[in-house]
């Protein structure tokens, strides 16, 4: 990836999972050999709300009740890295992508700079206090159901457990994992494991138990996997580029795979409603919404990085560096002036 990876502990990044390709990966996954290694944890610190305001690192949150659920509009401190040399669409994308996840207790996880190999993880709480973890880059993070901790993948593909109160980290597995990270209702993690974090192809979806630190391959179909998350019936929706052409969303149940939807061969950033019935995606700067039951696809107009509401009734998209809330038919319902807007977590039950 042509860049320095430097952790805060003296510039050393240890235990990059170097074992090539899926051979060892699959065996290790199935055998439970993916135990954590003795990697020094990245340092963490907590700061009070006053200290956050004093250091101009405070994160404000405005909550909006919108069609489809609660929307969080973040007021972020200035980005750590300059994105001015990037195309406008990419500037907006990186700003928005700094939001990682929110917990039911109001905590919010933010990557302190996306595309920065030395970005850290920032947790901000409703009272204004913060916890910071000096991860060597943040590829993804997801809160546990009770919000007491979160799982995070760093830029080297390692999996960490981060205690929400303190930001202290302990390594769960060396991976490498790509950054697609979601909790299942049973408390396991759905991860995408690849041979290489730089060129994560082929990759497989694994179910990782934080308690036993064992991983089991969920979907044996190797490919160019974008993401995986759990559907209401405990099956797993896997979005992947199909070897040889096409992008598919598959439903994997007990190891058997069935196609849920076939998308445009250039589809990226697929986002599913909680029940998997609606899938939004982008092709070349245009947002589409696919209806699984009917198989029809609606063109919703210009935009990028769609994020479907939990109930599928609306979606957030990036437009001109701002965030637009669209109805399922593409009608613009609302517009937020920044890109740092996201759906609130659905933990605790968003479903009617």
């Amino acid at each position, binding site marked *: *990836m*042509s*860049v*320095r*990876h430097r952790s805060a502990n003296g*510039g*050393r*990044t*240890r*235990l*990059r*999972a*170097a*074992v*090539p*390709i*899926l*051979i*060892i990966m699959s065996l290790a996954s199935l055998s439970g050999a993916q135990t954590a*290694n003795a990697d020094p944890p990245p340092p963490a610190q907590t700061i009070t709300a006053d200290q956050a305001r004093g250091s101009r690192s405070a994160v404000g949150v405005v909550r909006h009740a919108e069609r489809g659920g609660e929307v969080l509009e973040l007021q972020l401190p200035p980005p750590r890295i300059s994105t001015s040399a*990037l*195309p406008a*669409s*990419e500037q907006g*994308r*990186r700003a928005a*992508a700094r939001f990682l996840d929110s917990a039911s207790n109001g905590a919010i996880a933010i990557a302190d700079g*996306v*595309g920065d*190999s030395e970005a850290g993880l920032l947790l901000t709480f409703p009272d204004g206090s913060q916890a910071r973890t000096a991860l060597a880059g943040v*590829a*993804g993070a997801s809160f546990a159901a009770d919000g007491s901790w979160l799982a995070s993948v760093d*830029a*080297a593909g390692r999996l960490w457990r981060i205690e929400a109160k303190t930001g202290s980290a302990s390594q769960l597995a060396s991976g*490498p994992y*790509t*950054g*697609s990270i979601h909790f299942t209702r049973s408390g396991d993690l759905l991860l*995408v494991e690849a*041979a*290489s*974090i*730089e*060129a*994560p*192809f*082929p990759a497989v979806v694994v179910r990782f138990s934080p308690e036993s630190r064992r991983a089991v391959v969920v979907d044996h179909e190797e490919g*160019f996997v*974008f993401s995986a998350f759990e559907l209401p019936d405990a099956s797993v929706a896997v979005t992947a*580029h199909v*070897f*040889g*052409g096409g*992008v598919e969303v598959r439903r994997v149940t007990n190891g058997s795979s069935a196609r849920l939807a076939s998308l*445009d061969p*250039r*589809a*990226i950033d697929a986002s599913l409603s909680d029940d998997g019935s609606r899938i939004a995606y982008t*092709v*070349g700067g245009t947002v589409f919404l696919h209806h699984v039951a009917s198989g029809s696809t609606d063109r919703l107009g210009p935009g990028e990085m769609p994020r479907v509401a939990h109930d599928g009734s609306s979606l957030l998209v990036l437009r001109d560096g701002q965030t637009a809330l669209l109805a399922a038919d593409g009608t613009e319902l609302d517009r937020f002036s920044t890109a740092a807007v996201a759906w609130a977590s659905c933990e605790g039950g968003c479903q009617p």
Partner: protein
Amino acid sequence: MIGRACIGLSFALAVWLGSAGRALATDDYTLPFYDPSISLSYGVDRDPRPCYQRDWANVLWADCNLHYGRVYDGHTGMDYPMPLLSPVAASRDGTVIDLFEGFGTEQFGINGNYVLLSHADGRRTLYYHLAQNGAYASVGKTVLAGQWIGASGCSGQCYGAHLHFEMRAVVGGRWAPVDPLYEQRFTTNPGRVPFLAAYLRESNSGTEVIKRYTTITHWVEFVNAGGRTWRNNIGVGRVLLGTWNPPTRNSAFSAIDWPSSWVATNVDQSSVPPGKVGRFTFGLHAESPPGTYDEPFNLLANSMRWFDWARLSSFHVPIMVMINTRFDDPPA
């Protein structure tokens, strides 16, 4: 005498031991780009242990730091920094078995764009971080070594535009990355590309003045600066001079000796090895009305791989068509 012989024998033994376990050099792949100024930033880590790195020169680094020009820990390919949208070339004849090109050219994220080729020796090569719509190939098509198959970008987990080139082979029944630099798989040393030419001279570097309805002969010479021998027969290595801007443009100045309306000529010599000069002789026939024109040409290898036109000094022939009083009415 015996001592010198022993020293020589020891040296030979040391060399042999040093190469023991190393794959035989085959030199059957070419570097996946055309610009000879591009050099390796990070190569393959051949040591699977975390924080142990064995680079392409077989040097072991017992740390997890980055070693520019050599390796970084866990790296499965070879990184070649290059500007965005630089040409990316097939490293060997092969078949396109997969590609993805939907991500933005500089879109940072988990995944990026790529082309994956399968080769006759059972290996695969991967070209990663390509630009959006930067896969100039389609699945199932065959490509030739040196063929332009993509445009570089910085999609995926990429910090600074570069090409991640990866070679894979079946090891123990599974696909695994291998190190083509260590195995000496490249046709030429890093920096040499298979088909490259440098402009040398031509019969008339100024404007060719042609009387309308007549034909003149023009020749141009290029130095073969690449790693492959040019040939003038149909088949592998054939190098021809074709119209440019746009490529395969039908020329208004094609003469009767042109093989087609856009191919001016094949290289004159039957073979032009690397470092030697190839001459291209062709006619220019003027049918166009009197006036000034400009005819750009470029070299094409294997009927598919255009040369880097800038290195041909953007070869073009300025032409002035004059009135032919035998056939044309004099100007009013």
